[in-house]
C-alpha cells in the first residue's frame, strides 16, 4: 500500500495555471485582433457615419449638417427608385438562384462517372473575378457583336437589345448574377446533402415515400441550415451589388439598373458629394441589417428532434 501511494505521488500533476501574471498574458492575446478590428472595421464605419452627418464635399470645408443629408435623400424620388430596383434585383436574382441551385444540387448529388469534371465546370463562374464576368457578358449580350443575339438572329428572331432596352437591362443584370452565383447555392446544397445518412435515403426508398415526403423529412432537415446560410449570404451580396451593373449597363438605361451601391459611387466620384454617398452607404447597412436580423435567428433555431436528449429510461 505504502509503495502504491508513493508511486501515485511521484506522478507529476499539472495544475491549471492561475495567478495574475497568467491572466494578464491571456488578456494581452486579445490586443492584436482587437486593434485590427478597431482600425479596419470600427473606425471606417464610425468615420463614414460622421461624414454622413456633415456637409462635406471634395475641396470644401465640412459643416455639421445633422440628418439633412438623409432628409434630402429621402425627398429625392430617384433615390427611392434606385432602392426599389436594388431590392427587386436582390429578390429576383436570389429567388432564382435558390430554386435553381437546389435543383442542380440534387441533380449533381448522384454519383455518376465524370461528375468531378462536371462539378468543376459548374463552380467555375463563382471563381471568376466579377470584372471578368461583367466584361465577357457585356460582349456576349452586345446587340451588334454579341454571341447571344447572333444565335437569336440565326434562328430567325429579332435581336434583343439586352443592355440598352428598359425591359431587358434589369433582366440582364439578374441573369449574370444568377449565372455567377447559382453555383454557390449548389455548393451549399451539396454540402447539406452530403450529411444525409445514406441508410435514411434507402429506408425512405423502401417505404416508398413520395418525392415531397422525402424532401420534407429526409433532406430538408439537412438542407435547412446550409440553405439559410446561402440565402443570407446571397441577399447581403446582392443588396450591395455593384460590379455587374457598373460594367454591364453602367446603371442605365436611365437609372433602371442603378443599385444603391452604384448610386453611392456616382455621388462620391462623379458629383463629389461625399456626405450623400456616405448616407447612401448607411442606408445599405440598415437594409442589410434588417435582413440579417430576420435570417440569422432562424439559423440558430434547432430543427425538430435534435433537442438535448432526455432520460432514456433504460
Amino acid at each position, binding site marked *: 500500500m505504502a509503495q502504491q501511494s508513493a508511486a501515485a505521488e511521484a506522478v507529476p500533476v499539472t495544475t491549471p495555471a492561475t495567478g495574475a501574471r497568467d491572466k494578464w498574458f491571456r488578456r494581452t492575446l486579445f490586443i492584436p485582433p482587437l486593434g485590427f478590428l478597431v482600425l479596419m472595421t470600427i473606425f471606417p464605419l464610425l468615420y463614414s457615419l460622421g461624414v454622413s452627418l456633415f456637409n462635406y464635399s471634395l475641396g470644401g470645408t465640412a459643416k455639421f449638417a445633422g440628418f439633412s443629408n438623409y432628409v434630402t435623400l429621402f425627398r429625392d424620388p430617384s433615390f427611392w427608385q434606385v432602392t426599389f430596383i436594388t431590392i427587386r434585383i436582390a429578390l429576383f436574382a436570389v429567388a432564382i438562384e435558390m430554386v435553381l441551385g437546389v435543383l442542380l444540387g440534387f441533380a449533381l448529388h448522384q454519383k455518376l462517372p465524370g461528375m468531378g469534371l462536371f462539378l468543376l465546370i459548374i463552380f467555375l463562374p463563382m471563381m471568376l473575378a466579377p470584372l471578368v464576368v461583367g466584361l465577357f457578358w457585356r460582349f456576349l449580350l452586345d446587340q451588334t457583336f454579341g454571341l447571344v443575339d447572333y444565335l437569336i438572329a440565326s434562328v430567325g428572331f429579332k435581336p434583343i437589345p439586352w443592355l440598352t432596352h428598359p425591359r431587358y437591362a434589369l433582366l440582364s443584370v439578374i441573369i449574370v448574377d444568377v449565372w455567377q452565383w447559382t453555383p454557390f447555392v449548389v455548393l451549399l446544397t451539396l454540402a447539406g446533402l452530403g450529411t444525409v445518412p445514406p*441508410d*435514411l435515403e434507402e429506408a425512405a426508398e*423502401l*417505404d416508398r*415515400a*413520395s418525392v415531397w*415526403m422525402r424532401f420534407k*423529412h429526409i433532406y430538408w432537415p439537412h438542407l435547412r441550415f446550409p440553405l439559410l446560410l446561402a440565402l443570407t449570404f446571397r441577399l447581403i451580396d446582392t443588396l450591395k451589388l455593384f460590379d455587374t451593373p457598373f460594367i454591364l449597363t453602367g446603371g442605365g438605361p436611365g437609372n433602371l439598373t442603378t443599385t444603391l451601391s452604384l448610386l453611392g459611387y456616382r455621388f462620391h466620384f462623379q458629383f463629389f458629394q461625399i456626405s450623400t454617398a456616405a448616407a447612401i452607404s448607411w442606408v445599405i447597412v440598415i437594409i442589410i441589417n434588417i435582413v440579417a436580423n430576420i435570417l440569422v435567428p432562424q439559423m440558430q433555431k434547432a430543427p425538430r*428532434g*435534435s433537442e438535448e436528449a432526455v432520460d432514456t429510461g433504460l
Partner: protein
Amino acid sequence: MTSIRLENVHVNFGKTEVLRDISLEVADGELCVIVGPSGCGKTVTLRAISGLTRPSRGHVYFDDNVIDHVAPGDRNVGMAFQTYALYPNMTVRENWEFPLRAAKRQEELIQERVGQVTGLLDMGPLLNRYPRELSGGQQQRVALGRALVRRPQVFLLDEPMGNLDAKLRVELRASLRKLQMDLGVTTVYVTHDQVDAQALGDKIVVMDVGSVQQVGTPEQIYETPANLFVAGFIGTPRMNFLDGTLKQENGNLVVEHPLFKMDLPEEVVGRLADNARDRKVVMGVRPESIGVSTHPGPQTIPGKIYVCEPQSNEVIIEIELEEEVHLKVRVGRDALGFEPYIDQLVQVQIDPDTLHFFDSVTGVRLS
C-alpha cells in the same frame, strides 16, 4: 405470398468480391436465418434481396419472377436496418406512421397498426419520443416496428435484436416468431448469433467469406455440419477438433490419435464414405457428447482439469489431455456427480458414435 430465390448471385464492391456465387431458396412463409461471422456477406445478401445492392452477376427471383430490375420500393419488402435508419426528425409514432402514410392508408388502419406494433414491442410510454431520446435497444425496436407496420410481402431483418438486453431478446424472439407465423410472411433474418439462428429458423444458411457454407434445418446444421467452419461456428462452446488417422485394423476401422485409439462401431463405418480409409482426418466432437468421470473405465483417456466455467445447471470444463491438446466438455451438474476443481485428474470418455470426421486438407465432412 412470396418465395425468394437467389441464383448464382455475385456482388462486387470495386475489385473486391463480397458475394461469391450465392444460391439459396426461401419458401413462402418460411423464416430463413442467415448466420455467419462479421464481414461474411450476410448483410449484402439481404441488400441484394431488397434491391438496395445490385448483383454484378446472377438473378433474384420472387415467386419465379426475375426482379433484377425492379426498384427496391416496388419489391414490397419491409427492412429493419442494422443501423436502425430511423427518421431523426420524427417521433416513434411518426416513424411508424411514415410507411403507412406513404402508402396513403386510411387513418383508422394507420392507428390500428401502430397500436398493434406498440403493444408487440412494448413501446407505449415512448411513442412521442424522438429517436435520439431513446436507448440503442429502444431504437432497435422502433426500426423493427417500422418494418412490421407495413405488412409487406417479405421481411428483411438485419440483426434486429443485436442491441437488446437478454430478457427482452428472448421475449421478443418468441413474439416475433409468433407474429411471423400468424402473418405467414416470408422472412430473411440476418444475425451473427447462432443461438438466435437455432431458436428462430425454419432454415439456416451459414455463410463465410462471401459464400454459402451450408443450408439446412437447425437440426441438420447441428448434427451434420458440412465442413469444419460450420462445425466450429454452430454450437457453444464450439466443437472440439483433434487430428487423427483412420486405419483398418483386424478387419475393424479404428481412429488413431497419439493419445488414444478407438474402434469405430458399424453404424459409424457405414456412414463414412468408402474412400475414408487410411487417411489423415480431423475428428470433431461436441462438448456435450463427452463424458467425464474420476475413475478410469474402458476406452477412457486421462486428463487434467484446466479451467472450470460453472453455468446455471451445467458446467463447462476445459480438460488438458497433454500440452496444447485441450477438450471442452459441457455436462449437467447432476450427470457429473462430483465437484470439479482445477488440476483435478479425470478420465474422459468419448462416444465413437458422436464423432464427426472431416478431411484434414479441405475441411469437408466425410460421410
